[in-house]
């Protein structure tokens, strides 16, 4: 077996120029897949962390009703005893913080013009405890939970532009209370926020939790957002929390970030499909070009194969020899590709290149690639398998040569 392997290994270097060209082709395919896959992986990671740390959190807790029926009145599917629930959740491992939130909507007016807003009421101290990305302000500062004056508000930069207001200006917000009445409150803009997502910035408004509860006339919250030390701990913490929520008077349910991150899932699904498509293209490129090269190799070695068959070499051995040679080329090509792909990845990561903002975003995306071991293994296997498959036709042809004719081959 060792001699057979040696024969296969030496055979692949008989025509060095051709072998080097094949290695370049195979390696190029692997390197290309690693760069594209690494870029996608970096993008997925960035989008995941941006989604979670941008406010979604790792886990959110809702009432079961929140998903079973629409709210008829403000907060009628909200959580009653949220302080007790939050305190219980905080005692778990890996939990960095728990923040109550109220999601509400209504109209905002500057006296001349009105617009719809999507409101979020937060506890600034609890939000800071989640350890999420700091809010990016184009001007002003964050909400102050201890502010005793006028109700403070943060608004998105798109809404600020639409309402033609700046920090220090006032707005009136109107919303339906939990009793179904219309209620309003004057707010002072203390900050203008740039979330990086234009759609959100055109509608977002944020006030403190007590202010929203006064506006909506309810002590409930919509949900509790849980921040963890690491995203990778989400499943473990969710599994630990679920039983603790079952014993409470109100039926609660927890959702992991992946259940709520619709945009992330759509992007990932689209990009993954594109990547699979690229993989298929590389697979067929390697397959088709290798078949030609291996057929040429077989033709050149016709008399040698005839000699081996004349000496009594089983035809299956000839098939195995050709497939082994192709597989070895695949392995070497994959090694070249993994080295080249990682090297180019390092160079790209140090080049500080930026890409234009993706759809819906306002900030440019850095052109970085991740070095993903599973991608290296997968891409390598892809080209090794495609080369092994490419060798089947030449191998079978070689094994079926008529010995007398092969020996007379010039």
């Amino acid at each position, binding site marked *: 077996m060792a001699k057979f392997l040696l024969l296969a290994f030496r055979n692949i270097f008989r025509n060095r120029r051709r072998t080097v060209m094949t290695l370049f082709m195979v390696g190029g395919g692997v390197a290309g897949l690693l760069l594209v896959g690494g870029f996608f992986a970096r993008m997925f990671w960035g989008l995941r962390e941006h989604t979670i740390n941008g406010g979604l959190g790792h886990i959110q807790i809702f009432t079961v009703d929140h998903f079973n029926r629409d709210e008829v009145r403000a907060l009628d599917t909200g959580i009653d005893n949220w302080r007790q629930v939050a305190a219980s959740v905080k005692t778990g491992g890996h939990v960095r913080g728990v923040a109550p939130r109220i999601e509400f909507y209504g109209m905002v007016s500057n006296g001349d013009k009105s617009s719809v807003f999507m409101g979020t009421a937060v506890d600034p101290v609890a939000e800071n405890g989640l350890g999420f990305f700091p809010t990016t302000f184009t001007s002003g500062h964050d909400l102050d939970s201890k502010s005793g004056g006028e109700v403070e508000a943060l608004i998105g930069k798109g809404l600020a532009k639409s309402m033609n207001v700046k920090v220090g200006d006032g707005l009136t917000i109107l919303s339906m209370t939990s009793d179904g009445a219309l209620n309003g409150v004057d707010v002072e803009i203390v900050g203008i926020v740039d979330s990086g997502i234009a759609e959100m910035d055109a509608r977002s408004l944020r006030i403190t939790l007590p202010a929203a509860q006064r506006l909506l006339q309810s002590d409930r919250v919509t949900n509790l957002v849980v921040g963890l030390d690491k995203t990778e701990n989400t499943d473990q913490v969710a599994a630990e929390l679920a039983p603790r929520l079952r014993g409470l008077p109100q039926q609660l349910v927890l959702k992991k970030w992946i259940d709520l991150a619709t945009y992330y899932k759509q992007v990932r699904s689209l990009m993954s499909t594109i990547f699979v498509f690229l993989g298929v293209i590389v697979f067929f490129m390697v397959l088709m070009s290798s078949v030609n090269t291996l057929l040429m190799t077989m033709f050149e070695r016709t008399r040698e194969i005839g000699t081996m068959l004349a000496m*009594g070499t089983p035809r299956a051995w000839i098939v195995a020899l050709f497939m082994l040679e192709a597989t070895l080329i695949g392995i070497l090509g994959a090694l070249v590709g993994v080295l080249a792909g990682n090297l180019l990845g390092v160079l790209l990561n140090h080049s500080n290149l930026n890409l234009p903002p993706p759809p819906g975003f306002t900030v440019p995306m850095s052109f970085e690639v991740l070095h993903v071991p599973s991608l290296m293994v997968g891409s390598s296997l892809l080209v090794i398998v495609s080369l092994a498959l490419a060798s089947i036709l030449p191998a079978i042809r070689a094994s079926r040569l008529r010995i007398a004719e092969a*020996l007379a081959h010039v």
Partner: protein
Amino acid sequence: MDELVNVEAVSRRFPLDNIPAHHPAHSFVSALSDASLRVSAGEFLAIAGPSGSGKTTLLNLIGCIDKPTSGRILVDGVDTSKLKPGSMSALRREKIGFVFQTFNLIPVFTAAENVEYPLLIQSVGSRERRKRVAEALDSVGLSARANQRPDLLSGGERQRVAVARAIVHRPALVLADEPTANLDTHNATQLIDLMHGLNRRLGLTFIFSTHDARLLEHTERIVRLTDGEVISDTTIQGGSRG
């Protein structure tokens, strides 16, 4: 002596073009016609004749790398016309050694590895392989060149490696198709002497083809072919060494 090869009224025709056999325009060329030949174990036999006389065809048929159109060939008592491809392959592997006109060594193997090859395909153990390869290379006087690749050997040396490869697995029969055609007279004579010596010393049966009249002086038995027919079968008592 025991009969090793029995060629009984063997013909070999090759179709011309790709016209099916039942088609009126079908035609063929006859490479061998009704040839008969008996070879005993330990013989040193030359098949002589001009180019195109059917020497290679006859050797291919005896060597089980081709099948006759009619007639039958027995090698060591086995009717090769009844063998399946796998059994033909096994017969060649175990009982026949081949020496080719163009040496046909595996270029990426060293001389020793080339000689080792027939033992590899017979799954002989590594220790036994090393021993037999050393013996075979020693018997052709190439022990010192064991680790050289074919491209660093002279034509004569390459053919001696080919002879070592043909005898290393101790076959009953060695077939050599024009083994001296690519050698100068000196190397050709040396090679025939070497094969003759192996024939006498080890009792190996050699059948080789040649159209070089000078080499026939070294042979005890000469079968002459012309246009695919055996026209003479001459035995010279005791052989003649020049």
